[in-house]
C-alpha cells in the first residue's frame, strides 16, 4: 500500500483547491486546504504537514514568500509550487528557495503522478533520516539516563566501573537528579543484571513496616501476621537491593542492616533460624550523612559499610548543556502520551529554561515540559508556555538557606549604599564592627 501523506493545498481559487482535494482523496491522503499564505501558516502551526501545493499568485503573501517561510521554519515540509503564470525567473527562485517541484497549471494527470512518486521517495529519505536520528538519540542515552555533558560522560564511565565490582554503593545528589535511574543502570551493567532489582523507599515506610518488608515474618510473629512472608532481603536473592532515602532509617534499622551486611545472614521477624542472603546493596540519599554522623543521627560504622563507593550525581544546574536534549526527550514522550502534535520549541523558550536554576532538577524539568505540552495550543512551545515558570523564577532562584539569604541580603544593602559601611550598618540594624566581621567571614566583595 502506498504511504499516506498529510497534504495542504494553498490556492486562492476555490476550484483549484477542490480539484486537487478530490484528486488526492482518491489516494487516501489526508487533505486540508488554505486560501492564503497566512491561513496556511496558521494551520501548519497547529499540526505538521508533509507536503504543500502552493500557488504563486495569491493576494497578500505570495506563494514564493510562503515557500521561503515554510522552508525556514519547517524544513522537513516539502513544497510543490503550482502556477498558471510560469516564468523561468519564478521557477528558478522557487527551486532556489527549496521547492521540490514546479508545475504549470493546468497539467497532465501523469505529471502530477510523477511529482508524487518523486515526493514519496523524498519523504522516504526524510523518514529514514528520522530513523537514523532516532538511533543516534539512543546513543546520547545511557540506560535511560539522558545527557551528553562532561559531568554525565564522567558519570557513565563511573557507572561502568562501579558495576563490575560487588561493593556497596552510595548515590548522593539533590532531589530529582535520577538516583534510582543510576541505581538501575549499575544493576543493569553488573553481573547480577539477570537477577531481581528491588527498590525500597526508606523514607516512605515506618520502622515496624520497614523491618517486616526487609526481613519478612513468621506466621504469628505479631498481631495480624496470619501467614509467613518472605522479606525483600530474601526475595532479592542474588540481585540488587536499592534503599532510597537511606538517611531516613532509624538507628535500630541501621544496626539490623549492618549485621546483615557483615554476616550475610538474617532472621525473619519471629524466627530464630538464620537465613543466608546474597545481594548487592545500593543506597541513595539527598542528605549530608557525614553531618548526620557528627550530629549523632547516623551510625558511623553503618555509613562506612554502605559508602564503599560514592557516586555523586550532578544537579541540573551543573549540566545545563543537557537541557535542550532533555526537553526534546520529554516533549516527544508527552506528545506521544497525549497524542498532541507538539514537536518544536522556540529558541527563546530554551534560553528561558536554560537560565532557570532547577532546584527540583530533572524531575522538575520533566513536570514543567509535561505541563507545557498538555496545555499548549500549538505544535511549537514558546516562552508563553512556560510563563508559570517565569513568575516563580525569581523566588526560586533566590538562596534557600538562612545563611545564604543573610549573605545575599547584606551584599544587596552594601551594593545599594555603594559599600558605605556606616550607612549600611544603620540600615541593617547592626554596628559597624559586626558588619566588618560579617563581610570578612563571608568573604563579601564589591561587585564590578
Amino acid at each position, binding site marked *: 500500500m502506498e504511504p499516506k501523506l498529510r497534504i495542504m493545498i494553498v490556492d486562492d481559487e476555490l*476550484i*483549484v483547491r477542490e*480539484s486537487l482535494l478530490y484528486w488526492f482523496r*482518491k*489516494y*487516501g491522503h489526508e487533505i486540508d486546504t488554505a486560501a492564503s499564505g497566512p491561513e496556511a501558516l496558521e494551520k501548519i502551526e497547529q499540526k505538521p504537514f508533509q507536503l504543500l501545493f502552493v500557488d504563486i499568485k495569491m493576494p497578500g503573501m505570495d506563494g514564493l514568500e510562503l515557500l521561503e517561510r515554510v522552508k525556514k521554519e519547517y524544513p522537513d515540509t516539502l513544497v510543490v509550487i503550482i502556477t498558471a503564470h510560469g516564468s523561468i525567473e519564478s521557477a528558478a527562485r522557487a527551486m532556489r528557495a527549496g521547492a521540490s517541484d514546479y508545475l504549470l497549471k493546468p497539467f497532465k*494527470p*501523469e505529471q502530477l503522478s*510523477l511529482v508524487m512518486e518523486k515526493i514519496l521517495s523524498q519523504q522516504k529519505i526524510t523518514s529514514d533520516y528520522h530513523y537514523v536520528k532516532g538511533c543516534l538519540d539512543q546513543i546520547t542515552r545511557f540506560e535511560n539516563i539522558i545527557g551528553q555533558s562532561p559531568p554525565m560522560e564522567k558519570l557513565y564511565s563511573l557507572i561502568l566501573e562501579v558495576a563490575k565490582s560487588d561493593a556497596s554503593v552510595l548515590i548522593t545528589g539533590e532531589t530529582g537528579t535520577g538516583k534510582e535511574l543510576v541505581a538501575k543502570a549499575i544493576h543493569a551493567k553488573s553481573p547480577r543484571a539477570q537477577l531481581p532489582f528491588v527498590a525500597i523507599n526508606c523514607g516512605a515506610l515506618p520502622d515496624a513496616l520497614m523491618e517486616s518488608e526487609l526481613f519478612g515474618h513468621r506466621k504469628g510473629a505479631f498481631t495480624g501476621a496470619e501467614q509467613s512472608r518472605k522479606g525483600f532481603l530474601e526475595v532479592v536473592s542474588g540481585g540488587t537491593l536499592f534503599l532510597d532515602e537511606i538517611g531516613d532509617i532509624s538507628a535500630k534499622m541501621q544496626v539490623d542492616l549492618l549485621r546483615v551486611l557483615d554476616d550475610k545472614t538474617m532472621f525473619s521477624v519471629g524466627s530464630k533460624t538464620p537465613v543466608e542472603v546474597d545481594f548487592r546493596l545500593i543506597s541513595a540519599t539527598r542528605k549530608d550523612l557525614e553531618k548526620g554522623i557528627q550530629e549523632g543521627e547516623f551510625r558511623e560504622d553503618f555509613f562506612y559499610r554502605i559508602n564503599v563507593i560514592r557516586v555523586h550525581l550532578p544537579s541540573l544546574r551543573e549540566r545545563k548543556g543537557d537541557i535542550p536534549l532533555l526537553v526534546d526527550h520529554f516533549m516527544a514522550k508527552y506528545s506521544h502520551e497525549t497524542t498532541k502534535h507538539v514537536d518544536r520549541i522556540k529558541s527563546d523558550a530554551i534560553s528561558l529554561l536554560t537560565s532557570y536554576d532547577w532546584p527540583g532538577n530533572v524531575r522538575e524539568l520533566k513536570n514543567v515540559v509535561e505541563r507545557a505540552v498538555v496545555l499548549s495550543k500549538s505544535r511549537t512551545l514558546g516562552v508563553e508556555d512556560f510563563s508559570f515558570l517565569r513568575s516563580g523564577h525569581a523566588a526560586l532562584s533566590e538562596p534557600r538557606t538562612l545563611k545564604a539569604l543573610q549573605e545575599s541580603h547584606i551584599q544587596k544593602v552594601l551594593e545599594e549604599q555603594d559599600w558605605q559601611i556606616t550607612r549600611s550598618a544603620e540600615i541593617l540594624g547592626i554596628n559597624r564592627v559586626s558588619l566588618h566581621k560579617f563581610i570578612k567571614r563571608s568573604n563579601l566583595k564589591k561587585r564590578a
Partner: protein
Amino acid sequence: MKEQIGVVPLGEVPTLAVEVIAANITAYYKLPADVLPMRPIPESTFDEARLKYNAGLLINKLDALDFEGYSKIVGVISRDMFIPIFNYVYGQAVQGGSLALISLFRLNRNADGSTPSTSLVFERAAKLALHELGHLFNLFHCNETKCIMHFSGVIEDLNKIPFYLCRDCARRLPR
C-alpha cells in the same frame, strides 16, 4: 438499499461500448448493471477556452437528474473532459459517492498515434468504468500494478492494468 448500477450514455455513445461496460461491472463486481436511456450532454458544461467539457460540472448536472432505483451511476461520454488543474481526465468520480463519469475520447488513439482495434477501445472503456466505480465504493488508488485501482496516467498504463481488484482492495470492498 440493494446495489443496482446504472450505465448512462451522455450524448451519442456507441451502444456496444455501454453494454460492454455494464457486462463487465456485473462480471467483476458481481452487481446487477443496467444500460439506461441516453441523456443529452448539458452544453453549459463546455468550456470555450479549453474546448473541452468540465468533468466536475458534468457530475453536478448528473446529480440533478433522477435515477430512481439505482444506487450508483456511471456516465459515459464520447467527448474530451478536463478538471481545472488538469489538461484532461479519462474519468472522474466522487470518492465514496454515487456518481462517476468516463470519457471515451482519448481511448481511440494509441500512444504512438495509431488507431487501436474496437475491442481494445471497449476493453479500455470497461477498465475505466471499473476503476471509477471502485472510487464510488470508496477504494483509493492502489500502488499494486496488478489492480484495477492502480492509477493510469497514460493510455499504456490502462492497457497494462487488469480488470480485477488486487487482494487488498477486494478485501476493502464493502460487502
